[in-house]
């Protein structure tokens, strides 16, 4: 091996200043490209959603549609509850940013703390989705507001029965899959950071992914939940 074998090192690489990319690392560029790519897979689903919804006579079989057309009753989405989930996810983006900037100013402990909070918010969001689908935390929910929250499936929103139900499950589950991978990814980075195997760049890259998941959720929330039938 050549004299340059000395150049072999496995620590974080320092990138030379580049007129176009400054010190942007390959990992960061790669993540951006992946996010663009992933954005297009969401667009495929959202496009399908838009076209199917645009071509449907009614969107969701609520009381009046059921009375008029005799379709099987479907629940409306719980906007308030989901707004809470959205808020949680936005909080997680904030803690993500704080974690990164803490690390940049050399505060590893703070970074670990806020990264941990981010993971926790992500898990809370997933629990929220479980409640929304399956009513997993019905007992707890009942204790909070005294209402009955058996989950959308039990309330008659059946995958495959209508486009209203199918597109909802496909898109939110695809997003949920992203949150799940995000939580796993964040946990791996947390561990690496704890063991001093990660630097601010690693945290920034996972942050990019996490903010993307958050941004997509805001679009999903808008399109699926907020646009009135």
């Amino acid at each position, binding site marked *: 091996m050549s004299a340059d074998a000395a*150049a072999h090192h496995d620590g974080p690489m320092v990138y030379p200043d580049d*007129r176009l990319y400054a010190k942007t690392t390959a990992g960061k560029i790669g993540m951006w490209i992946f996010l663009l*790519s*992933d954005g297009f897979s969401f667009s495929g689903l959202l496009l399908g959603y838009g076209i*199917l919804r645009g071509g449907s006579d009614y969107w969701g079989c609520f009381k009046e549609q059921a009375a008029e057309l005799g379709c099987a009753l479907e629940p409306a989405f719980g906007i308030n509850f989901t707004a809470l989930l959205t808020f949680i996810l936005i909080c997680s983006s904030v803690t993500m940013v704080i974690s990164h900037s803490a690390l940049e100013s050399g505060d590893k402990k703070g970074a670990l703390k806020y990264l941990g909070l981010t993971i926790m918010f992500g898990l809370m969001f997933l629990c929220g989705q479980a409640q929304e689908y399956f009513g997993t935390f019905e007992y707890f929910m009942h204790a909070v507001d005294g209402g009955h929250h058996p989950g959308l499936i039990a309330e008659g929103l059946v*995958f495959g029965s209508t486009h209203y139900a199918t597109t909802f499950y*496909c898109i939110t589950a695809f997003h949920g899959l992203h949150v799940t991978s995000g939580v796993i990814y964040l946990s791996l980075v947390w561990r690496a950071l704890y063991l001093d195997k990660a630097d601010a760049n690693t945290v920034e890259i996972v942050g990019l992914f996490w903010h993307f998941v958050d941004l997509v959720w805001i679009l999903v929330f808008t399109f699926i939940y907020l646009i009135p039938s």
Partner: protein
Amino acid sequence: MQGVMTPADIEAAQHLQHIHETPKSFVKHYVFSIDHKYIAKQFLWAGLLFLFFGGMLAMLIRWQWAYPGEAVPVVGNLLFPDTQGAITPPTYNTIFTTHGLIMIFFAITPIMIGCFGNFCIPLMIGARDMAFPWLNLLSFWIFALSQALVLASFCVELGSAAAGWTTYPPLASQVGTPGLGQSLMVLALFVTGVSTIMGAINYITTVIRFRAPGMTWFRMPGTVWGLWLTSILNALFVPVLGSAGLMLLFDRHFGTQFFLTGAAGGTGDPILFQHLFWIFGHPEVYILILPIWGFVIDFMSFFARKPAYWFRGSIYAMITVTVLSAVVYGHHMFVTGMSPLLGQAFMLLTLVISVPAEILFLNWLHTIWKGSIRLTVPMLFGLGTIFVFGLGGLTGIYLGTISTDLYLHDTMFVVGHFHLTMASAAFLGSFGALYLWFPKMYGRLMNPFLGKVHFWFSTVGLTLVFGFQMLAGYAGQQRRLYDPFQYSYLEGLQDLNRFTTYCAFALAIGQLAFVYNFFYSLFAGKRASQNPWELGTIEWTDCASPPVHHNFDRIPVVYRGPHEYNHPEVLEKLGRDWIGQTEEFDPAADAATSDEVAATA
């Protein structure tokens, strides 16, 4: 950071990429390799294998159109024992469907993008490996998994996919193609898409971040440009196919009705699938031609021994096509009852693409005009590519014009068109690339005589086969007919179809010249020198044939563009008609120009 390329910049570049030890264990070296050169070879072999497979399927289709329903000679009894060697209609559907899918996704894509993308990009930009070697490894093995799924789809009851390569529902729904094979094939497309996206992320990042000091954007060879732009289209549009494929699989197995309607039972929208498919599908056709354009830009200059004519123009033209390719997909759907206004818009945008295509064309011709042309095998393949692509591109204009497309849609004219553009051009271009880079890959030369035999059989064969197909289509023969001649108005085309089939068989036989040449040269070809073609790009000037594991002991410094041939001063001083991109010629002058160069240090 404008300014001169300082020694510090050059030194910094040395540390950017690790030098990995050459792996010692068999598995790490030959199976799970992270070396881009080795992964390239893996893609090459995987692709060639399926190219053979897809080619055999093509021969079966041709036989069917020459002698519909008659027993296939030689292999018939082996393949279709139940019918004494004859192809039945359902089998025929499977054959033309899988031919298209295998060729596009499992043969051309791995050879052109998987192999040459992997091999050329790092070597030609002066990098030690891809940006993410592990992702690269994963990309190949996920691709291998998708090929396994394709093979599996042939082994299940009712056989493989049969809904056409475009996989339109309702034919592609459980009603039209109830077999598991159709699902396995859609799954294979999804999996290969994952692999493609991984590759694309790797290529794009590598080109952005790992160019050697001095390798500015416009000093990159056309080859790298083509592969890079293709990767961008891949990263953006393959996911859309992925979404469509998932929805289709849900429709087939989980009771949804995205695309199901009418007799298929549902309130979905089959046209939605066409939209999603072609949003991906039209960029896909350019995905399969951009690398070829890149090769051709380089080959014309390499072997006409002249600088590429208006190189920047060619690159801008390719960028324009890349952008436009995203907004023309509607021309595949003119007959779906789309709004005439929308149709007009798609027609206009489609025809606008001919402008940049024309620029590329003229630049190629200008490049070889009055050149000292060396008719090497890669050069011949490059010229052949231009010829078949020219024919195919011109016929695209008839299809892009709504009034003529209404008549030509779904005829053999379309089949001829896209085989000339996509199939023939990609085929000839990829083989040209293989002949060019074989010595660098394997350290041995291929036999030029056999290469020329291969060239003539291929180019003449492809032109005749697909030219005649267009003729048949113009005369009214629809595509995908089991027995075209059962319709009296097509009876007169039987002789034409038979003759086309003979041409196709000759084309196939001509491939034997390649097979022999490839295997012979692999083991017993003459040893290649470092730079057998006398070219100036980095892989020839700075790497042994084959290159060492980490490509470069020191990352080279680039002083000029990739096409410096017959420069008078170089001729005078060095006595040769080429100069390497990394050769310091006149230190004072080189330093002065490095102002503009410093961008990438």
